[in-house]
């Protein structure tokens, strides 16, 4: 089962690089933001897989915190783009 986890982690890293194309070349700030949001959700899965691979359950807590940070960062940047200030 460890080999399957490793293979799925490698496929996830390849899809993260596919999303990074949109971060680099996407026209405008919205395309970049939605690609960064997708990369963040894939990173959560990658952290869970790392926790299973190296048998460290602390990585699940790290992934929960990363999900919260991803959500709050996206909402804050969206609010800043909408109103011009975070208030």
């Amino acid at each position, binding site marked *: 089962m460890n080999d399957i986890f490793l293979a*799925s982690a490698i*496929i*996830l890293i390849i899809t993260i690089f596919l999303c990074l194309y949109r971060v680099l070349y996407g026209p405008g700030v919205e395309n970049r933001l939605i690609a960064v949001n997708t990369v963040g*959700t894939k990173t*959560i*899965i990658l952290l869970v897989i790392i926790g299973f691979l190296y048998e460290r359950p602390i990585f*699940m807590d790290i*992934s929960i915190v990363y999900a919260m940070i991803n959500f709050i960062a996206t909402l804050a940047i969206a609010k800043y783009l909408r109103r011009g200030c975070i208030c």
Partner: protein
Amino acid sequence: MHLLNTLALIFIAIGLFFMVVGAVGLIRLPDFYTRAHASGKCDTLGEGMMLIGFILYEGMTLIAVKLVLLVIFIFITSPTAVHSLVNVAHSRNIAPWKKGDERR
């Protein structure tokens, strides 16, 4: 135990398929709004399926409870984030793509 591992494998494979489809759609689709649609595939279906596979592999432990909490949290927050981004794009007067336009 063997049946549960096989079931977990099937769920992880379905989740990986949706992850790849979302990433390809994020590159291929012509507009911001259609890309938001492709991003939603990654965010809810791919992530949910893969985490359900990990829960089935793990069994009844504390880690499984944390993963269930993670699934519920992501199912609430990720569509909210994408909705706010689409709201920003609509307020900045980005026109939707129509058939025959060039891709942006």
